[in-house]
């Protein structure tokens, strides 16, 4: 089941610069997309979400962009901080069902 894919296993960024994490999906029925941050031995922590009827949602340093025609979304973190270093998961949901479908995750490392 590869309905949600994160093709970059890792990303390394300098502190203060922009981090861009990418995610692709195949199921056009998904109506919400979410980004989660995860540390080892902890559960996923919700960061930001976007409805399929929008193309951008912003919350502080985090912005998610959705391109429905390309079935692609991205998470921008500006400016990146060392505390942002974690695994980032993209997830999609068909809200009438409630289950989240996750991507494989991208390890973000922000260097001081």
């Amino acid at each position, binding site marked *: 089941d590869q309905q949600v894919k994160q093709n970059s296993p890792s990303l390394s960024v300098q502190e203060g610069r922009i981090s861009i994490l990418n995610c692709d999906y195949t199921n056009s029925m998904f109506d*919400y997309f*979410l980004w*989660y941050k995860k540390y080892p*031995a*902890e*559960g*996923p*922590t*919700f960061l930001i*979400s976007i409805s399929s009827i929008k193309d951008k949602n912003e919350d502080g340093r985090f912005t998610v962009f959705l391109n429905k025609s390309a079935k692609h979304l991205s998470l921008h973190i500006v400016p990146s901080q060392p505390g942002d270093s974690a695994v980032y*998961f993209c*997830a999609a*949901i068909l*809200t*009438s*069902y*409630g*289950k*989240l*479908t*996750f*991507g*494989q*995750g991208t390890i973000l490392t922000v260097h001081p």
Partner: protein
Amino acid sequence: EPEVTQTPSHQVTQMGQEVILRCVPISNHLYFYWYRQILGQKVEFLVSFYNNEISEKSEIFDDQFSVERPDGSNFTLKIRSTKLEDSAMYFCASSGGAGVYGYTFGSGTRLTVV
């Protein structure tokens, strides 16, 4: 901030034994979920539970697995006759409504089957 609480944080069990993983969802949430993450792999959906019954389950959730809400606060995942490949992090989640409202994960139980 409300939390989803999972116990134990780590469980080691012998192959073939039964285990029960426990979760206390956020108190006013109505939808409950179990996910798992095998080391190095993606987080996978196992089962969703609403109104005292399973609403959806994945192919992984076979007859070896069962869920229960034995009282008003706990939500449990039982794995009968554990196998080595059941070793994973198991995450409980709850949400306040259908969809993304308040969708919150617990910190997980690491299950090791030896």
